[in-house]
């Protein structure tokens, strides 16, 4: 304790600690205590790592503008397809183009934000093979924060950016009476949706602890899930809709809350409470993903060598 105070207080101190034990006390002050403190430390670690990666990316003269542009174009293709479809019809599954815009905007925004924040976790298998996970595990920061921040790049802002444009357009084109509950619900669904996709990224990546090459598997849930949510639930078989309501909780990203906002009937006829349950579903997803991550770390076998 004294050592710590001297360290910060005055310049009178021994050049080096004489016995290692003397570090024990100040160290326990450094170690984040309690749940909230630990969460803050996890976020801070993510931020520190992400900042390093941003700087590292500057070492390459990859044109940021070109890649951001390409990113926006790639991620816009899905909506271009929707527009092309509406050249031939004015309703799809009973929904209009602005309504699909709302579906697309919310789903792509949530996926894009999740991808920006934690999407890098999908390369976990490569990190394991390259041995970089070992390196992360010897740092006093949560490994998950570091894996999620790995190769962080603002280039991934492309998807949420174009999703926002579509979202704004659809909100202006729709005749919706934006009462406070609907505005609140929209905000809540964007956050919950981001969290749900984030949990899917992490939970899916966890499989790579056991199945190192299975990177593509989780694409079914993340990118595949987002594609599913671009279209109205009425387009799909009831079993599929039930599957993404009670299994992988994709329906909570936008389908269920948007039913309320747009005043549409639920094809499954579920109680209205489901339409407000997105934050709960998000919390549950995070819990499951966190447990999976822990189990994965315990089963981790090292990079070999």
């Amino acid at each position, binding site marked *: 304790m004294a050592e*710590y105070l001297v*360290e*910060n207080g005055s*310049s009178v*101190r021994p*050049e*080096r*600690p*004489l*016995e*290692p*034990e003397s*570090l*024990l006390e*100040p*160290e326990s002050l*450094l*170690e984040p205590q309690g749940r909230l403190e630990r969460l803050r430390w996890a976020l801070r*670690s993510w931020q*520190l790592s992400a900042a*390093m990666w941003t*700087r*590292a*990316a500057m*070492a*390459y003269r990859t044109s940021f503008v070109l890649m951001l542009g390409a990113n926006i174009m790639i991620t816009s293709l899905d909506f271009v397809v929707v527009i092309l479809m509406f050249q031939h019809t004015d309703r799809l599954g009973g929904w209009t183009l602005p309504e699909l815009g709302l579906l697309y905007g919310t789903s792509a925004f949530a996926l894009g934000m999740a991808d920006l924040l934690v999407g890098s976790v999908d390369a976990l298998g490569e990190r394991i093979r390259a*041995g*970089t996970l*070992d*390196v992360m*595990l*010897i*740092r*006093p*920061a*949560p490994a998950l924060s570091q894996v999620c921040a790995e190769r962080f790049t603002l280039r991934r802002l492309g998807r949420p950016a174009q999703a926002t444009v579509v979202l704004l357009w659809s909100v202006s084109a729709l005749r919706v009476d934006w009462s406070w509950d609907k505005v609140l619900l929209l905000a809540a669904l964007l956050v919950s949706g981001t969290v749900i996709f984030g949990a899917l990224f992490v939970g899916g990546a966890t499989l790579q602890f056991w199945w190192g090459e299975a990177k593509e598997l989780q694409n079914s849930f993340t990118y595949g899930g987002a594609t599913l949510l671009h279209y109205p639930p009425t387009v799909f078989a009831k079993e599929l809709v039930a599957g993404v309501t009670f299994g992988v909780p994709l329906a909570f990203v936008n389908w269920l809350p948007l039913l309320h906002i747009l005043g549409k009937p639920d094809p499954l006829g579920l109680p209205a409470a489901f339409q407000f349950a997105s934050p709960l579903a998000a919390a549950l997803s995070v819990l499951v993903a966190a447990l999976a991550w822990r189990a994965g770390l*315990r089963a*981790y*076998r*090292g990079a070999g*060598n």
Partner: protein
Amino acid sequence: MALIELEDVARTFTIRAKVGRLRRERREVRAVDGLSFTVEAGECVGYIGPNGAGKSTTIKMLTGILVPSAGRLRVAGVDPARERTRLARRIGVVFGQRTTLWWDLPLRDSYDLARRIYRIPDARYRANLDRCVELLELGPLLDTPVRQLSLGQRMRGDLAAALLHDPQVLYLDEPTIGLDVVSKVRVREFLREINTVAGTTVLLTTHDLTDIEQLCGRVMVIDHGRMVYDGGLDGLHATGRSERTLVVDLAGPSAPIEVPGARVVKVDGARQWLAFPAEDSAAPIVAAVAAGYPLLDLSVREPAIEDVIARMYAKVPIG
């Protein structure tokens, strides 16, 4: 209380190997098999053994990277697997095979991140960095991107990174691998300094026996995940009665060479391998071979540490 304590620690890996065309078989590899030892604060211990002996696996369990399958281990009073991040502040790790530095960024940036991640108080950070920079001669390298550093320079950079937060223990997994003689000497000098002057406990894995000879008062040898020797260096030399090898190329295939003081251990076409005691001179043997056989070329191989260990493994009772 000992700084590092292991009690009956084991770690198994299940691997699925292909047998035949389609069938696959599960097999258990006991990488570490009931290992117990303690290391006191301030010691410098050499940890050696043949490839695949389980050295890296032990170190990974001691850092919390791997969860042990059985047994109990504590480092600085902490269970590594349970409280990995807490332990991380008390230990420093250097993997010779990979780097903890940021590949594309100047060396300085990696240190700055360490300062934040380990929450090193400013004054302490500056003092430690200055010290490492001086001892490891890093000054001119601080602003160079890590990918542009030579292997030896990078290793020095890694050593500094592992020590900025004043760890109580420093684990080194083959820190001198691939380094030239000059770099090896410098790394060893530095390690001696931090062990004797700063009192940091050092656990060192290597295949270079010189590292051990110059640094460690104590050696632990493992094979197949079990301790086969734990004691002073002299004991290791006495136990492992080593041999050198003379490799000769004859003009053509011939029957095994017969000369006094050496025996043929291997024949491959025109090439033959002769073993003789390490302390004997090679000259009379070479002369005898040259006199009796059509000799084209020859070379002498020094005893490899694996041979010493293998010999010892046969002699020392397990445990």
